[in-house]
């Protein structure tokens, strides 16, 4: 039986390992308690609060252009709302926009493509169509892939998405 929780401290440690300095975010209930609140209350990262998710694509790109590492912490609905910015900036301008995306109300241990939710089912096919590297974090062992995925995004100047499939615990 695989443990079906996603511990926030392990994700924060992974972001530190990946040398992330800025977290750019619109709140998402999947990651709120376990990730965004500890980040907001801590001193490890500079938090930039956004009004809308597509702003964050450009903020992360500007930071990357300046030689600084960031992640965009949002909900999958915000990812869907930001597709044109991701297309134009992360994909066509080849910017290393790293996104940590909560999958709101995904059923436990159900792959996103098999969710009963239309909005969840289409996320991975859209990322595939845009040739954006992505993977889903649903248990603690999958968090260890995050630093190397972020390093690869910056090394290749390409976007990446880590989907968070379970509520993150503090």
């Amino acid at each position, binding site marked *: 039986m695989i443990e079906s929780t996603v511990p926030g401290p392990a994700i924060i440690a992974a972001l530190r390992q990946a040398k992330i300095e*800025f977290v750019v975010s619109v709140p998402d209930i999947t990651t709120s308690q376990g990730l965004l609140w500890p980040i907001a209350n801590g001193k490890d990262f*500079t938090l*930039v*609060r*956004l*009004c*809308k998710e*597509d*702003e*964050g*694509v*450009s*903020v*992360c*790109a*500007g*930071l*990357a*252009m*300046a*030689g*600084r590492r*960031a992640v965009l912490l949002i909900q999958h609905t915000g990812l869907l709302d930001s597709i*044109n*910015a991701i*297309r*134009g*900036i992360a994909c*066509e*301008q*080849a*910017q290393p926009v790293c996104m940590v995306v909560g999958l709101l109300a995904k059923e436990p241990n159900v792959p996103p493509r098999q969710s009963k939710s239309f909005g969840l089912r289409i996320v991975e096919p859209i990322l595939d169509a845009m040739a954006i590297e992505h993977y889903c974090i649903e248990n603690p062992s999958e968090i260890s892939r995050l630093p190397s995925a972020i390093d690869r995004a910056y090394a290749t100047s390409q976007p990446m998405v880590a989907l968070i499939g379970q509520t993150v615990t503090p």
Partner: protein
Amino acid sequence: MMRRDDCIQTILQHRGDAAILAVYNTGLDLRRLSASRLNLYSAGAMGQGSSWGLGLALGMPERKIMVLDGDGSLLMNLGSLVTIANAAPPNLYHFVFENGCYEANGSHPIPGQGRVSFAGIAREAGFPHSYEFDDLATFERMAAGLLALEGPVFVTLKVVQGDPSPQDYAYVNAAERLREFREAITSRK
């Protein structure tokens, strides 16, 4: 009303080593008027110039960042004014060239043409400094002073098109421009 290229010339006289991100026709005018490698001519998606500027300003607090935005572009990302005011980067200078239309898309009027106050919106969003100019002599007289202010600073410039600029989108959108810009802004000042 002022000519857009005259306003850009005024800004360029005071840029120092500031990095400038300009969008659409403002970017094409900048390309005609300045060959600096500290120019970036495209935000990659309409409305994203102000957010790009915020990222650059936060990432490079030692360098002035100027965004030359359009009114139609800003309307697509009005929330960015609140985000910028909240983050309060002291090195960000956001100019909006208000021509009242979507010039790159057939010159259709923007919603609220002639009625919306972008400087007013920025002020109420929390910008500590917000200005509006429709007279070139006044803008020329004030430019040095407002660029010496601690930002974020917002400036609306009410403009008409000046001399036509080459529609060289292949140049301004080329990946090479991004590479040159990054090399320029990250090189030692």
